[in-house]
């Protein structure tokens, strides 16, 4: 520490508190030979090395704390900064970053970039890793009860003949699947109040509605639908999505939660849409691979989306699924 230059500073006015009572002592601070000296209502000296100086800021009062809990408040920031500078005190890099606008701008850009990168790459990667690490039995339990709930509220027993159901199941079971292992799964048929639909639950159930079966032009198209849903299961899409939405939700609550909970619920909702479109594409790719492996023309799969596309009355503004035309184009491109 530089001990020779301090004589040039005029003593600084300060307010001293001894840590035992709330009494205010008016004092002056001067620094000589590496020792801080107080004079005025109280006299005290202390080596600089034992003092602690609070972080620099332009609007908060700076404090010098003594080892016994006493402390000194100094109002004249500029003069105090000079003294600190001359005694060799240096702010930490975080404080320097916080005090400069360039640093703040840099931090803003880096923050936006970090948020975007983790949303785009890190989070899906972590969610994937976690989803595959979760034991099958736990994942099964995630989906348990969902089908029971739906049976109670949305579904009725299927009107399809049992022989027809079994024939479709057998036809799908005969198909080879991409990859070395196939998840245990169960195909269930239901009549629904919500029209043509097919989805896979983490419990391993692939639900196919009667309306969906009727909508499909031929049985190979139905195989295409089932392959797509098996793709969801195989790639643990639902579990991954649950992990991702929880993480985005927690992040948004931390970022915006202080201001308004209403605002905090919007970003997760919007951000989830991108993930779900990615997931549909992944499942389409799985279906393409599976049909190809079994020598079924991809056109059958394309016909699934042609049929579904006809159902769409007008395009919804924010959609969770890619547009049918886009998916058909992708499948036909894979055909070539």
């Amino acid at each position: 520490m530089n001990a020779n230059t301090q004589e040039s500073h005029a003593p600084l006015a300060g307010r001293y508190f001894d840590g035992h009572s709330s009494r205010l002592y008016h004092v002056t601070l001067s620094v000589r030979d590496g020792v801080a000296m107080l004079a005025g209502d109280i006299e005290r000296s202390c080596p600089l090395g034992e003092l602690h100086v609070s972080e620099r800021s332009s609007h908060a009062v700076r404090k010098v704390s003594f080892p016994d809990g006493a402390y000194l408040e100094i109002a004249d920031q500029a003069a105090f900064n000079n003294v600190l500078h001359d005694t060799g005190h240096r702010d930490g890099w975080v404080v320097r970053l916080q005090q400069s606008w360039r640093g703040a701008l840099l931090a803003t850009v880096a923050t936006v970039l970090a948020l975007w990168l983790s949303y785009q790459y890190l989070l899906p990667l972590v969610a994937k890793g976690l989803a595959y690490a979760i034991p099958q039995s736990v994942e099964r339990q995630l989906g348990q009860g969902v089908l029971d709930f739906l049976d109670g509220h949305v579904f009725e027993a299927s009107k399809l003949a049992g022989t027809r159901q079994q024939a479709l199941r057998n036809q799908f079971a005969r198909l080879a699947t991409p990859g070395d292992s196939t998840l245990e799964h169960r195909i269930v048929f239901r009549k629904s109040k919500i029209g043509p639909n097919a989805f896979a639950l983490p419990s391993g159930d692939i639900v196919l509605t009667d309306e969906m079966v009727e909508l499909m032009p031929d049985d190979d198209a139905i195989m295409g639908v089932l392959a797509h849903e098996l793709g969801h299961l195989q790639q643990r899409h639902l579990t991954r999505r649950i992990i991702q939405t929880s993480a985005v939700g927690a992040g948004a609550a931390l970022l915006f939660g202080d201001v308004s909970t209403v605002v905090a619920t919007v970003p997760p909702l919007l951000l989830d849409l991108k993930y779900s479109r990615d997931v549909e594409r992944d499942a389409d790719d799985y279906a393409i691979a599976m049909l190809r492996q079994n020598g079924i023309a991809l056109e059958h799969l394309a016909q699934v989306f042609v049929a579904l596309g006809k159902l769409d009355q007008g395009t919804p503004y924010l959609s969770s699924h890619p547009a049918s035309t886009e998916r058909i184009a992708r499948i036909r491109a894979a055909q070539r």
Partner: protein
Amino acid sequence: MDFDTNNTMPKREAITFSATGSEYFRIWIVNLLLSIVTLGIYSAWAKVRRNRYFYSSTHLAGSSFEYHGNAVAILKGRIAAVVLIGGYNIALRVSPIVGLLMFVLLAAILPWLVWKSLQFKLYNTSYRGIRFGFGGSAKEAYKYFLWLPILNTFTLGLMTPFLHQRLKRFQHTQSRFGTSQFSFDATVGSFYKTYLLFFALLLGGLLVLIFVVFGSVFASFAAHANDATKVGSLMFAIGALYLWAFTVLPLFLTMIQNLIWNHTRLQQHQFQSQLTWGRTTFIMLTNLLGVVVTLGLFAPFAHVRWLKYRLEATSMLVHGSLDEFVAATGQQVSATGEGMADLLDFDLSM
């Protein structure tokens, strides 16, 4: 020195808050970045930085406050919180029974954690070199944070104002500054009056909205107007509902905060809180708008604005001198103090 405090006129000392949005923005963005890249670990240090800045920007009678919170203790509290909340959410998904068990576990330890968190917060705040403190027993914490709330659910929430009064009374009478206790004398009746006034206004406004605004929605549906008109009138009605909610909520905040602080004393010194409905509403609405429009970048400015208004509406009527408070014994011995070492902060806010 004048010791005859009863005969002197009280001196009014207003709280001033010197933090600015632009300076806090720089602190906030650097903290945010470091918190993100360290996967949240730095957030404990960020909280210490933020609190230190805010506390030393808060002045009363020429002296500022100081925050002494220890980042490692905060980090421990946060890890506990994340494990508990995360565990509860996962348990609930795995099976309702495991979820219920986890819920019972949470209910059993949450009051204790809230109590520790209150102690942490006050013990780590000082003014004029003297630390605040929070007493109370674990038994009382369980009474006010667990048993009474459970009881309240059986009364369909009719006990809420009573519960609110008891909670604030517990909080304010168990707080001390050095060796001086705070006191609290707002009655249960005044809490019921505030809640009733709020609900009367809320309901009155809702009735008006239903008759005037939703009337026009029904009219547009009944007249088989085109879809755009229907959607438009419905959006307008929902917007009006939100606007009303955001206008009435600040009223409640204003009334309750004024009620609580106008009945709190530190020995003979009386607190005063003079928030107004109009200003509170204006600040909250413009803050919300600012945050939405700037995609969150306005958040630190909004925070400072709101804090500044709330703090500067508070003042202290000083009877005599603020020089006579004495630090609690035991605290002088060491900065951490025996028995304070196991404190952890449970507060999750950034």
